[in-house]
């Protein structure tokens, strides 16, 4: 085999893979701009004859994609932020304060959470939120999401904080700074890279979560994007363009985020799986 040909074989194989990944997205994107089912059926592969942007307006307003979208956004962000802050505070106490035995025990205790596969606790958590009378409110998602983030976040932030040298805080303590001040003004700013990674991983996890959102929330106005989308698909089953519009609405924000932060996202997600 000539060298040039041999060199191009991997590229050819990988290009086929890339096409298999990207074509479904393009198919949905083009369909979302098409006028109706007839146009999709007659010209499945081509670009739309005229780009029908009104599909997007219709899905956003009439089909309540906007409601699902904002619910998802604020729940995912709030739960991720609270999870990260709680984990950072805990990691600070475990790695910087002088209670080594208690800290080691707490660390092990929190890591037990990483051994339990998510949906094993589903029924028990369902009954728990029911007993707390928060079923069908956003609390029933916010609390489990924030709690679910803790084991992995504590693990990663602890690892990061251990690497910060102690000289800085020694000087700060000499100058009379308190422990909370030390945390907020010295350690937290230095930990920002780890906090960002952990926040993004948690945010994506919450944004994509389906099982709890499906069964803990039954009011349509409270649904998040993954469950609202399923609802939307079942309601508009025969309007393919509109369903495709909904898919674009839920894929686009994540794809844009990924475009900017791909390295952080890939590193964060793979680190999460390897340590878990």
């Amino acid at each position, binding site marked *: 085999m000539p060298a040039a040909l041999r060199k191009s074989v991997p590229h050819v194989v*990988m290009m086929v893979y890339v096409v298999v990944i990207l074509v479904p997205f393009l198919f949905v994107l083009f369909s979302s701009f098409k006028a109706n089912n007839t146009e999709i059926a007659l010209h499945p592969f081509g670009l739309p004859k005229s780009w029908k942007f009104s599909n997007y307006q219709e899905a956003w307003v009439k089909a309540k994609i906007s409601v699902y979208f904002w619910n998802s956004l604020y729940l995912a962000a709030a739960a991720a932020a609270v999870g990260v802050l709680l984990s950072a505070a805990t990691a600070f106490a475990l790695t910087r304060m002088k209670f080594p035995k208690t800290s080691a025990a707490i660390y092990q205790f929190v890591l037990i959470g990483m051994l339990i596969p998510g*949906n094993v*606790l589903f029924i028990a958590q369902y009954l728990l939120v029911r007993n707390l009378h928060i079923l069908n409110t956003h609390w029933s998602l916010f*609390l489990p999401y924030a709690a*679910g983030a803790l084991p992995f976040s504590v693990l990663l932030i602890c690892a990061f904080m251990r690497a910060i040298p102690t000289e800085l805080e020694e000087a700060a303590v000499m100058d009379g700074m308190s422990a909370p001040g030390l945390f907020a003004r010295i350690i937290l700013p230095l930990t920002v890279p780890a906090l960002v990674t952990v926040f993004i991983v948690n945010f994506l996890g919450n944004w994509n979560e*389906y099982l709890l959102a499906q069964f803990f929330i039954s009011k349509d106005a409270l649904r998040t994007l993954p469950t609202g989308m399923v609802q939307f698909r079942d309601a508009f089953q025969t309007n393919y363009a509109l369903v495709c519009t909904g898919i674009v609405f839920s894929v686009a924000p994540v794809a844009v985020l990924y475009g900017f932060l*791909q390295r952080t996202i890939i590193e964060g997600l793979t680190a999460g799986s390897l340590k878990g």
Partner: protein
Amino acid sequence: MKTTLKNPYVYLGFVLPTIALYFLFFIYPMLTSAVYGFTDWNGLDRRNFIGFDNFANAFGDADFQHSMYNNLYFIVFSVFVQIPLIVVFSLLISGVKRLQGFYKTTVFLPSILSTSVIGILWGYIYNPDVGLIASILKIFGAEPIYWLGESKWAMFAILITNAWQWMGFYIVLILAAILAIPKEIDEAARIDGASGAQRAWYLTVPLIRPVINVVVMLSIAGALRVVDIVLVMTDGGPAGATDVMASYMVSKAIKFGDYGYGTALSIIIFAFALLLTALYQFAFARRQERVEY
């Protein structure tokens, strides 16, 4: 220095919120699961302890057995179809210089998306009237196939979608391991006249065995707890043909209110996960714990 970082009240202030939330949503549900699993509780009547009856019933329950087989399909498909492909693709990506970053970014993309959206997206691709596959088949004059509506195709269609979503994630894991191997080893083999395929098979693959083991275990664990994709694409249908253990557990608990029985099923899922990963560790992963370069 001593007093500032040794104040127990400040320490508690930092630690307690996390412990409280973690206890409420992890430890407490674990403890209640261990209780519910041994009762016949249906959410309304008084709950009675019935010992191991739920577990005995589960293994006699034909529908649950069927869902176990479906989990088995997930395991077999990921270990014997996906993982060989994943290793091949990783080797291919590691061997190129141009576009390496592009390949890595693209194949990883589906794994950051919501399983629910991917289920809807692929439901549309599989659509017998206007879907991508039906449209391609139409060119060749073939009849449309009801991928998700026929029992004999539905499971296969879900497996393909699941592979499409997750393969890239594992490719990135294995690729990182391949790229961490020192270049000198590969150089030396090349100078000795080993071909690319020989170097891949006799050098790279043995050196990344630990990571492949990790990927096998993650795949098995993932295959045992798979649920979202089934609920979104078929809801276990047609007629329970695609139910997996977790989706069966969820429908028993939520649709029928059989909390005791459902919890017993979730304990069985957990036990399977522990058992299979322990067996795999024992059989394969133990022999080479660390690779020395």
